[in-house]
Each structure stands twice: as C-alpha cells, then as structure tokens.
C-alpha cells in the first residue's frame, strides 16, 4: 500500500528528493592546509585562503578527491575521469571569497543507485543523480551580540560532498531510510563520520505533492535538516502545508524554507530570497580534475566491504535476514559481531549480540563504540557454553558480571565458582534430596500432573545454586520419577 496524505480533495502523493551535504573525512581542508577538527577555538583553523585574503589561491587536497571517488564507488555510481570546479557567486557574511568553489557543470561522480530497506522488510532502489565536491562556508553566530552577528571561518573551505538523489522517494519513511542508508555507506567507507549532531551530514529536502498520475508539481527546498527524524517530520509537515495551499486554491511557489524543529513546521527563509543568480563559471584558478582509470581501479580494489555485501554474507552464514540487517546497520556493530563470531557458530553469536548484548546496551544506555564488554570476552563466553563449562543460565549470570567488570569470562567463572556441575554423583545427591522432601508432589506427578516436572528441575537447580548441568538434571529426574 503506497503512502498518501489525505486532504479535503482526496489522497495526495508525496515526492521527495534529497541533497545531502556530507563532510569529507580528511585532516585538512579541500583547498587549504588548515585543520578540519570539530570544536576548535573561533577562527583558529583558518588559512588566508579560507578567509579570502587578496592573492590567495586554492590547491586541492588529493585525499578529498579519493574520498569522493570511494563514495561514488560505494553508491554504484559513474566516476567521471574528467571533472571541473566552478565558482558559485553570491554574497554572504560567512562566504569570504564571495563565491563557493563547487562542481556545477561537470561533477566528479555521475549517476548511481542505492537500495533502501523499509520497516516491512521490502526494498526499493533510489537513484543518485550526482555527487560533487565543494567548499563549506563559515558559521554565523547570531546570539552573541544584540545588534551584530559574529563570523567564525573554521568551517570555511572544509570539503563537502553534495550527494543529490533523484526525486524517487514517496514517503517520510523512504526519505528517512535513504538518509540512513547513505549515512551507513559513507561510514562503512570511512569517507564521512556521519555525525549529524556536529553537522558532518545535513540534508536539503526537496518536497512536492501531487495527485496520482500527475506530473511533478512545484517543489520547495527545506535547508539544513540535521537528523533522520527531522527529515521525516519535515517531509510530512511540508507536504501537509503544500496540500493546504493547493486545496485552498493557492499556488506553491518554489522557495527555500527552514524546518522549525520545536514547532514541527517549515517557514520561508528570508535571507535566500534573491540569491538565485549564482553566475556559475569555471574557476580559472583550478585546471580540470583529471583521474587515471588505473587509480580509480586501485581505490575500488581497496574499498572496505559495503553494508549490502556484508548483509548478504551474513545471510549466507545462516543468519536471518533481520539479524543480518540489524547487525550491519552500524559499522561498529558489524565489526563487533565479526570478532564475536570468528571461529564460532555465527547463529549463536548473532543471537547473543542481538539478544542479551543489545538488551544490555539499551539498559545501560551505551553504544557499541563504548561497549561495556569487549567482543573478545563475549566470544570467550560463547566458548565456555560450547565446551559445557557454562549452562545457558550460568552464562547469563557470567555475562551480567562481565557488564560490571569487563574481565575474561573464564576468570569470572573461576573467582565466583560459577562452573557448571556435571558430576552425576553430586547431581544425584541433590535430586534425591529434593525428591525426599517432596513426597506429595511425587504422588501428584505420578498421578498425571506432569507439569510438575519443571518444579523438580527448579528445586534441584536451586539446591545446586544454579550450577547443575540442566541436561543431566533432567535425565536423572526422569529416571527417578519413572
């Protein structure tokens, strides 16, 4: 069932395309040697190039080019061996040169496609129109002074990849899934840290609405939306606004808008009103960017495994498609799982990671990146289960202990005496004691109340402080109860 929004005149289809700005992971800026680290003192990571001083010239950072190509390969996209930088001319307080160096006519990456996965397990292909490299602008602070804005140029000149999608998305969920997938890909590739809180990834969301079967209607662009959740909210809010405009007899005008996260609505952006004649032309300071196919091939050969491939590999290992999906969403999770599963039963490892381990992270409000338990120790725990040292029940106790102090499970088993008892003599003694104390229950059991079997198991395990081997306990009880 496709997604629609209901207006007074019936259902409306929502059309969404995203332009995602992803900060390239690099030490220094796209055209200068100033640092890119987040959170430095104001204007402390600024070269004279970034500040647009007279006579300063750009020189491109080769690693940023490589990162763009890696990303393009990860998006299954065309790598253009010849591309060029253009100047996009406009005046703004945080744009020191009076132009942004970008790639308008000849981007480094052409068309591609990625597959998104939706909540119902279905998948959909979303087209990539292009990816190009460009400079970020500086930052204006409006809340430091009553009548002034303050300008910090630390971000000025930081390399961005602008990744433009086709208008292929038809619901807030698809838009959210697309951004999630894009983030997953760049994080796997190590080409962007995907940190949306710090502005490393932000989306301009193009939204329009239409009746089924219509051509596209006018779209509005919602600038700088900085989380998956906000993208989904902004799509719905903007679509509802446009439906209201159309249905009240109005016309939606093409414009740039902002998403007000507090109110959950979009509003027109004043400062961008007259900025539409950018006077693009080839930047005469920068000859064309020419790549060797052999260099692209080398990058391709050295790409890390991408999430789709990794997921397929996990399914081949016997994992459920759901587990494979969950384990590959975050690169760190997959890496954790790989260590836990190495040389062990993958399905058992997956059950532990997606089960007890994820539950523990949730409970402790931790991330895989700052895991309370190392993957190596969790793996060792699985070994102790496999070799019979621990029962499932004991293993959970050991795991709880590991959450408190991330020690090797064997050490916890030793110091706390949690080793499973497999000595039939000891078990038999415990069973005998339980049976002796519960003659009435034996009679009831033998009289047909077979559900009481679990009671005997429980009492025996309790008597053995949980350490009895469950299989042996069961076996002996069956024998003795007849």
């Amino acid at each position, binding site marked *: 069932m496709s997604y629609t929004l209901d207006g007074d005149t019936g259902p409306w289809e929502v059309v969404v395309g995203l332009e995602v700005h992803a900060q390239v992971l690099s030490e220094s800026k796209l055209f200068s*040697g100033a640092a890119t680290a987040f959170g430095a003192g104001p204007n*402390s990571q600024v070269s004279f190039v970034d500040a647009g001083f007279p006579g300063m010239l750009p*020189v491109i950072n080769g690693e940023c080019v490589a990162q763009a190509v890696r990303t393009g390969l990860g998006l299954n996209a065309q790598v253009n061996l010849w591309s060029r930088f253009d100047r996009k001319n406009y005046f703004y307080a945080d744009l020191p040169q009076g132009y942004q160096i970008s790639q308008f006519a000849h981007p480094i990456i052409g068309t591609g496609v990625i597959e998104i996965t939706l909540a119902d397990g279905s998948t959909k292909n979303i087209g990539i129109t292009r990816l190009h490299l460009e400079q970020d602008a500086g930052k204006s602070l409006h809340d430091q002074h009553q009548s002034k804005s303050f300008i910090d140029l630390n971000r000025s000149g930081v390399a961005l990849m602008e990744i433009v999608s086709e208008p292929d998305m038809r619901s807030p969920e698809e838009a959210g899934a697309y951004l999630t997938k894009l983030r997953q890909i760049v994080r796997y590739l190590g080409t962007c840290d995907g940190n949306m809180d710090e502005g490393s990834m932000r989306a301009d969301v193009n939204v329009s609405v239409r009746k089924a079967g219509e051509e596209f209607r006018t779209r509005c662009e919602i600038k700088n939306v900085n989380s998956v959740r906000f993208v989904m909210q902004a799509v719905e809010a903007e679509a509802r606004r446009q439906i209201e405009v159309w249905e009240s007899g109005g016309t939606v005008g093409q414009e740039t808008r902002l998403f007000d996260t507090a109110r959950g609505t979009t509003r027109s952006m004043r400062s961008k009103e007259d900025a539409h004649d950018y006077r693009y032309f080839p930047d005469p300071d920068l000859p064309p960017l020419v790549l060797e196919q052999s260099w692209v091939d080398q990058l391709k050969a050295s790409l890390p495994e991408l999430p789709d491939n990794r997921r397929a590999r996990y399914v081949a290992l016997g994992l459920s498609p759901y587990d494979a999906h969950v384990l590959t969403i975050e690169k760190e999770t997959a890496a954790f799982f790989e260590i836990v599963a190495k040389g062990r039963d993958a399905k058992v490892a997956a059950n532990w990671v997606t089960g007890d381990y994820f539950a523990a992270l949730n409970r402790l409000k931790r991330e895989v990146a700052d895991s309370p338990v190392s993957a190596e120790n969790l793996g060792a725990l699985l070994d102790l289960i496999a070799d019979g040292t621990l029962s499932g029940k004991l293993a959970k106790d050991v795991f709880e202990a590991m959450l408190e102090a991330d020690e090797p499970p064997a050490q916890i088993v030793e110091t706390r005496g949690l080793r499973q008892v497999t000595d039939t003599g000891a078990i038999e003694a415990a069973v005998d004691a339980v049976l002796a104390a519960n003659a009435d229950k034996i009679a009831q059991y033998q009289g047909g109340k077979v559900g009481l079997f679990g009671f005997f198991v429980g009492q025996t395990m309790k008597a053995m402080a949980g350490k009895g081997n469950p299989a042996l306990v069961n076996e002996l009880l069956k024998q003795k109860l007849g």
Partner: protein
Amino acid sequence: MSLDAAAVRRVANLARLRLDEPEVQKLQAEINGILGWIEQLQAVNTDGVEPMAGGSPVAVALPWRKDAVTDGGQADAVLRNAPDREGEYFGVPKVVE
C-alpha cells in the same frame, strides 16, 4: 542586447554596488556602448569549438597536495586587518535568516 535602467539596477544588486540615479543612467549608456561593441563576437562561427577555460597555453591537469595540516593556528593574523573585530570573531550587522 541592450540594458534598460531596471536591468542595470538588477546587475548592481547582484554585484552589491550601491548606485544613485545619475550613476544608473551613466552606466547604462556606457555598458550598452561596450556591449554593442562586444556584439561583433556573434559574427564568429564557433560551431564545434571547445571553449577555453583557464589561461594555460598547454594542456594542464589539477595538481594535488597531500592531506596534511600545514596552515591555520593564526587567528590573530586572520583578524588583525578586520574593520570590526569582536574578540576572536569578525563582526557584521546582525543577519536575520
């Protein structure tokens, strides 16, 4: 192609040049004179000609630099010439987004 006064004002807006009325008139005449002279380029047959980009007389490709931090850490030098320095920032009249 010739510019009317409104077009002169639109271009001045794009270029962020404040013009008073007499200047608009003067520039309109001058620019139209220059554009009229430039018009002769339309007579040249440029079918199939690749436009020149950049100034080099020989084919060149963009040289790359290594990804290393070699610059920055000089806030004072960056701010020293500013007409309105506000501590470690440049100050401008408040911008409403």
